[in-house]
């Protein structure tokens, strides 16, 4: 089968279960395509030899009752993987090989999946274009020199370019949904507490959440089912009843009330985005749902709030990378000198910028004005959602204020880069689940996404709405394989 890599996860699982395909065949196909796709620069670490061995081993004694039987997949390089280098896209962890496995990836391997390798991402997941990675830019399969979004840029690019059938990313302020939107793929940011953070390199602990990325909603639901688990090793993991998301998936969303927040109609938003949103509203109506105009009055404060809370936590979370215990160490005259050189040389500019912002907002004399105020605003933003969720079941918004931009276009303008996250950060601040699905193209033919935000723990509902819309939208990603010579 020459079109193995074009198959969705569900098709691959079915074909492996029906023995039409072996794990080895599937794994080989994705490795072959990955080998031909070096120009995309999606991988930081390839683990192909080991993947093939695991596939062969699987085929010798296939356990077909598993949810991901012998399915190969690559994961964002923010997940610690036992005996496989884990860099977080940073020079400072360039040589770091964990002796342990993150809970989320552990859940995946337990269901039979096989690791292909570790995918590129913005350094410590700080970025919206994958341009802050120490390992270089990632190309968007949609067009040459187009960013794939970030921080899970390598993940989005690998799924869109069919280098992996599915993947997992992490989303602190939009790092799954924005790149999904930029690459015409589906990305789910689960409720905070749904997926364990154990073994994931931390960016901002109160916002970080792992989530699935896939070609379609059903695959996304299946992967969410696998990765979401209560984990006592993460004190913020929540013990709630998790659905069999893929089994319970339905396109019947009749009578669902969908909120349309007026505050997401921001100044200077391209008409294409507004049109896409209107189309989305029509789609959900066509599916039998009802739309209701709502207000989330504190939305405009979300971005500044996010850019206080996230750097504050990051400045502390990244203190452990000091050259003492593991990772990169620069030579120094004494301890302080070693710290300064290690961290100046080991961290890139964007990470250093956020460490400085975070250190500043937590400083004595500024704490109340910045960090404490931001925490209060964060509560107001959450209250906004709580209030509207008394009236509606979910909220529909654009995923991003624009389509993908060119590599280098925004690198010298951090604020314009940060504005990419304007529709996604309120969700992280409120700890809610949200999914981005591809919903159309702009005039350049670049994909555009719509975001469905749900109530806490209500992943099933937004997956159902996304599933129903997906059918109506019938989106086709325009991948020309331009990078394959």
């Amino acid at each position, binding site marked *: 089968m020459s079109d193995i890599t074009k198959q969705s996860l569900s098709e691959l699982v079915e074909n492996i279960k029906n023995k039409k395909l072996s794990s080895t065949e599937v794994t080989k196909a994705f490795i072959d395509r990955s080998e031909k796709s070096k120009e995309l620069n999606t991988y930081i670490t390839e683990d192909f030899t080991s993947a093939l061995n695991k596939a062969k081993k699987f085929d010798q004694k296939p356990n077909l009752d598993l949810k991901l039987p012998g399915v190969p997949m690559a994961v964002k390089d923010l997940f610690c993987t036992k005996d496989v280098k884990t860099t977080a896209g940073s020079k400072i962890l360039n040589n770091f090989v*964990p002796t342990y496995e993150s809970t989320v990836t552990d859940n995946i391997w337990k269901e039979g999946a096989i690791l292909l390798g570790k995918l590129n991402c913005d350094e410590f997941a700080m970025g919206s274009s994958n341009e802050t990675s120490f390992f270089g830019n990632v190309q968007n399969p949609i067009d040459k020199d187009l960013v794939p979004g970030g921080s899970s840029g390598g993940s989005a690019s690998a799924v869109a370019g069919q280098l992996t059938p599915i993947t997992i990313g992490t989303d602190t302020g939009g790092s799954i949904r924005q790149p999904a939107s930029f690459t015409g793929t589906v990305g789910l940011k689960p409720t905070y507490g749904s997926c364990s953070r154990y073994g994931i390199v931390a960016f901002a602990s109160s916002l970080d959440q792992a989530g699935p990325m896939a070609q379609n909603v059903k695959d996304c639901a299946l992967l969410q089912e696998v990765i979401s688990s209560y984990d006592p090793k993460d004190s913020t993991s929540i013990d709630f009843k998790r659905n069999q998301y893929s089994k319970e998936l339905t396109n019947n969303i009749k009578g669902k009330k969908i909120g349309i927040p007026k505050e997401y109609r921001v100044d200077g938003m391209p008409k294409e985005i507004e049109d896409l949103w209107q189309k989305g509203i029509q789609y959900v109506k066509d599916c039998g749902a009802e739309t209701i105009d709502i207000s989330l009055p504190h939305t405009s404060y979300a971005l500044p709030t996010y850019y206080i809370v996230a750097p504050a936590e990051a400045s*502390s979370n990244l203190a*452990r990378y000091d050259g003492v215990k593991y990772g990169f160490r620069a030579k120094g005259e004494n301890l302080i000198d070693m710290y300064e050189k290690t961290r100046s040389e080991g961290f890139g500019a964007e990470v250093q910028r956020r460490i400085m912002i975070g250190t500043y907002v*937590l400083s004595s004399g500024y*704490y109340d004005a910045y960090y404490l105020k931001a925490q209060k605003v964060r509560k107001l933003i959450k209250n906004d959602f709580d209030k509207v969720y008394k009236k509606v079941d979910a909220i529909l918004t654009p995923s991003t204020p624009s389509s993908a931009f060119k590599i280098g276009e925004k690198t010298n303008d951090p604020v314009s880069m940060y504005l990419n996250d304007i529709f996604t950060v309120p969700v992280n601040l409120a700890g809610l689940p949200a999914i981005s699905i591809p919903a159309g193209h702009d005039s350049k033919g670049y994909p555009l996404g719509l975001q469905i935000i749900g109530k806490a723990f209500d992943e099933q509902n937004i997956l159902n709405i996304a599933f129903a819309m997906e059918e109506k939208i019938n989106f086709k990603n325009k991948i020309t394989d331009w990078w394959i010579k």
Partner: protein
Amino acid sequence: MSKKNSEYLINRKDNQYEVIIGLEVHAQVLSESKLFSTSATKFGAEPNTQVSLVDAAFPGMLPVINEFCVKQAIKTGIGLNAKINKRSVFDRKNYFYADLPQGYQISQFKDPIVGEGKVILDMPDGQKEVGIERLHLEQDAGKSIHDLDPQNTFVDLNRSGVALMEIVSKPDLRSPDEVSAYIKKLRSIMRYLGTCDGNMQEGSLRADVNVSVRLKGSKEFGTRCEIKNVNSIKFMQMAIEYEANRQVDMIEEGESIDQETRLFDTKKNETRSMRSKEDAHDYRYFPDPDLLPLEVSDEFINDLKKNIPELPDDKKKRFIDEFKLSPYEATILVSDIDTAKYFEEVVAKMGKNKDMKLAVNWITGELFAVLNSKGLEISQSPVSAKNFAILINLIKNGTISGKIAKTVFELMIDGDKDPQIIVEEKGLKQQSDPKALEALIDKIINDNREKAIEYKQGKEKLFGFFVGQAMKASGGKANPQLINKILKKKL
């Protein structure tokens, strides 16, 4: 209620200065595992053998609170008569150091687990109440070892993440002696509760000492200096004495005190500046987002309250009421939990017809002397409470005299022998047969006629001579009371 303690004042020319002291005591929680990881906490293990991925701050590792340590902190709070906060928050205290793997210490800043409380000190001239400001839980750091290599510093992370209770007193202490009494009282309470072993040599108990001085009678506090990490009561007292005098001298010379952190040099017996207020770290405290606020229910607290053992103050009161001990005796017996245990076991074993005073005198006298000379704790006493009780009873019922008892006690030390057997074997039983003693005394009076006459003529000192002769004649076994009685009659 508290009587005025004899004042500790520093005199200069016409001025008298009062010393104000507050302590931040760091007490290691008695627990098998660390505050946020499952690593062991045993003292003296090989370097870096009790370190988990969490303790070494590997990427993606997360802290999970150890419920046992929370219980220990709450129990200590109850022992300090303090308010238990049902909601407390863990914060990050951010600073860089080689033995601080996370780059921050998890501590409690704004919302500690225990609030205000108090402890009562027994000072020679009465009781003194010392206020507790708060108690919070925090992680210990690792240990930097600078003297193993000329070029490198080695780091041992065994201690990294071990649970500490920081107990902050109000600035209620006024003298080195009060500081000593306060530390001893805290130690005593925690050892009763089993929440800290109080072992200062192993670093389980250490303190930062805040010292300021002011003119006697002044209501304003002076500028304070903090002396960091003092690990013995003696050094605390020496450091306070030095520091208070240093501050007084500066004031007398018209200089002002700078608020600063100082170190006590135990070799030179002086404190010296470590860093000034301007150089003080900005720790950038903020709530640890890896941990939810710690919430405990009334039920959780009440269950712990129900299982709090009798504490030194209550035990002392009971010893006074029930056993009719003097406050002084009771204080000595309750100050250390093992002494109290030993005493209570002796009391129990003495049975119905017991002599409390005698038991107390023998414990604080003979037993303490033996322990002291052998460098033993009472828990390692070579004489068991059971045999000790038998010995006291032998004295009480007249089987042996107090003097003979000392001989018997000497013999008991080697192998915890039963004193009854010793008395039997060595024939040390007291002679209490009046007829036999009368015969013995008749003979002595006969042999010393002249002295007996002198005595009758008024030389009363000679009475002792006759007692001595009688005791000697009996090989020390004669009942001294009976000898006295018979001699009085016969002479």
